[in-house]
């Protein structure tokens, strides 16, 4: 990055943050601070919902998923549109009619205080963990590539975010998200078209090559039960598990509920959700396709042995020189052979020589496998040096391409886009964590009669508190999974039982608070036990998306059983909040 890139990076981020703070200056009432001033239109809500979900990991790590595993990850989002329909039709009208500030306030009205606190507590726990991840994820990639100190990157990102979330509340988050998303889409589109322009093969050849390397397997319709249960992404797990994941995330996670509760009317909020339902899968497809195109690009262009700069430097300094030299020689030879064979493949396709094309492609694939084996050896050498935390190789692919092949100015804009995405989702999370802490815990227990100005002040205090917790947790984090997957796994483990509570609240009339509470506790314990068993015993392994289905089913089942044991008496009227 040169001076122009830094100027664009800092100017973009500070400009957007200042805009959010200026537009929402002087806000004093609690509802306005936590939910917005109730003037948001559908487009703003839709963008805000997309921006809250799409953290930096979406734009940094998802192309890496495409590069490594192809388009299959898009199935993760197949259940989303159906979840959005259910939320728009059922959840949203109820939330709006009851004028709740947090989704868990509704559980307090429908069941009792302990059930509300349980759901709010699970949200604070899992979102607190997730909040650390949204700072940590981009910081580790960007610090790895640029050589910035990791801890300094985490602290600076966290502080900027806390500053404008504290200053402006929910509306500042929404207003800045729109501009940030504009920067992100502009930068990603520019990167996409520049990559297309730099591809050495035509579009038909590019797709043929991607297909030959199994990168275009977007839909897995296999009906083999074992395969469907264990494979991470299939049409069935993506549609069913993804439906429950999206239902839980958009319908019960305060960071999302807060985004659409601020709509000017029910219609605007609903259309915002519909906008997301229609746009999300195509958006994820194009981001994954970017990764697939990167894969093809690096089959023709020289790729580094390891993508992360810090990993390369560490390898050069600490790995045994003889072993490293051999790995590098193997890798270079494999790459040269692969490029040579692929040029022969292109020439054979041009002259319609099918036999020669097949032979060249098979030789290129063999060379590719030798190159990947050399990369694996390099990773083993790196592991032997006991490195501090590094992001997975795939997470570094896109940013490495940006730095080596895109013009200055655009590099600054793209790095600004990654930070903007990190700030987007981080700010929404902090705002939601502060809302939940204030409305569900602090006000009922410590200040039921407090005025709005005082509550806003407390909410700002909680924003700072959760910002500090997230920064501290990010400083101590250690990840081995692909980042975007790690975020989804954490969500899948905790969302199910909370979603079960909401489903009980919406669709049953005679289950009381005590049965719902203990049903949710038992369901959460069972989900965690199943995940632990899967991690330790292969026979118990279940694709994580299925936990989004198992969790609510267990919660609903346990609660109904408990209520049946008590007898389906009239609805409980114990301690309501």
């Amino acid at each position, binding site marked *: 990055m040169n001076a122009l890139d830094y100027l664009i990076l800092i100017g973009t981020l500070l400009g957007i943050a200042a805009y959010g703070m200026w537009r929402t200056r002087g806000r004093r009432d609690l509802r306005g601070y936590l939910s917005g001033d109730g003037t948001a239109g559908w487009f703003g809500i839709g963008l805000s919902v997309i921006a809250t979900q799409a953290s930096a990991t979406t734009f940094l790590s998802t192309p890496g998923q495409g590069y490594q595993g192809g388009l299959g990850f898009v199935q993760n989002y197949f259940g989303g*549109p159906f979840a959005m329909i259910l939320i728009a039709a059922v959840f949203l009208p109820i939330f709006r009619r009851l004028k709740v500030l947090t989704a868990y306030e509704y559980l307090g009205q429908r069941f009792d205080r302990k059930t509300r606190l349980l759901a709010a507590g699970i949200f604070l726990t899992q979102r607190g963990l997730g909040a650390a991840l949204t700072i940590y994820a981009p910081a580790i990639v960007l610090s790895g590539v640029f050589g910035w100190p990791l801890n300094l990157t985490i602290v600076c990102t966290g502080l900027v975010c806390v500053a404008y979330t504290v200053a402006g509340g929910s509306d500042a988050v929404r207003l800045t998200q729109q501009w940030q998303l504009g920067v992100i889409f502009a930068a990603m589109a520019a990167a996409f078209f520049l990559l297309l322009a730099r591809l050495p093969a035509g579009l038909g050849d590019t797709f043929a090559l*991607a297909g030959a390397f199994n990168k275009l397997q977007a839909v897995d319709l296999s009906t083999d039960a074992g395969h469907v249960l264990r494979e991470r992404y299939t049409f069935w797990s993506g549609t069913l598990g993804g439906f429950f994941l999206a239902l839980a995330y958009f319908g019960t996670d305060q960071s999302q509920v807060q985004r659409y509760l601020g709509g000017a009317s029910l219609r605007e909020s609903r259309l915002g959700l519909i906008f997301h339902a229609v746009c999300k899968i195509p958006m994820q497809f194009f981001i994954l396709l970017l990764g697939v195109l990167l894969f093809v690009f690096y089959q023709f262009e020289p790729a580094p042995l390891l993508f992360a700069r810090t990993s390369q430097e560490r390898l050069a300094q600490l790995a045994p020189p003889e072993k490293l030299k051999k790995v590098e020689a193997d890798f270079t030879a494999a790459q040269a052979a692969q490029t040579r064979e692929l040029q022969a493949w292109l020439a054979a396709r041009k002259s319609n020589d099918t036999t020669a094309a097949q032979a060249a492609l098979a030789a290129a694939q063999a060379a590719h496998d030798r190159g990947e084996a050399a990369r694996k050896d390099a990773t083993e050498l790196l592991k032997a040096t006991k490195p501090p935390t590094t992001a997975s190789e795939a997470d570094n692919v896109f940013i490495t391409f940006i730095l080596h092949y895109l013009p200055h100015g655009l590099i600054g804009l793209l790095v600004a886009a990654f930070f903007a995405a990190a700030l987007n989702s981080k700010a929404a999370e902090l705002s939601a964590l502060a809302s939940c802490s204030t409305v569900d815990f602090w006000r009922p227990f410590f200040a039921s009669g407090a005025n709005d100005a005082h509550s806003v002040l407390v909410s700002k205090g909680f924003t700072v508190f959760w910002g500090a917790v997230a920064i501290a947790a990010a400083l101590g984090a250690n990840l081995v999974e692909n980042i975007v997957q790690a975020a989804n796994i954490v969500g899948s483990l905790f969302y199910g039982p909370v979603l079960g509570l909401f489903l009980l609240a919406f669709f049953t009339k005679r289950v009381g608070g005590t049965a719902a509470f203990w049903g949710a506790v038992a369901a959460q314990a069972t989900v965690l036990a199943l995940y632990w068993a899967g991690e330790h015993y292969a026979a118990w392994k279940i694709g994580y998306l299925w936990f989004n289905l198992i969790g609510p089913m267990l919660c609903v089942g346990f609660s109904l059983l408990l209520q049946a044991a008590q007898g389906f008496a009239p609805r409980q009227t114990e301690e309501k909040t």
Partner: protein
Amino acid sequence: MPSPSPEPNDDDPGVPLFRSWCGVYAFVVACFTVTVGLLAWLTFSSR
């Protein structure tokens, strides 16, 4: 405790082009079907 129901609030004038919200939801399902159909075509044509 108000009884939960999926009935919309009175601040919902509907969406032009669609007769009701059911039409909007049918539109979403149609978009999903077309998108997944295209992805399935891409999958099977690349094998």
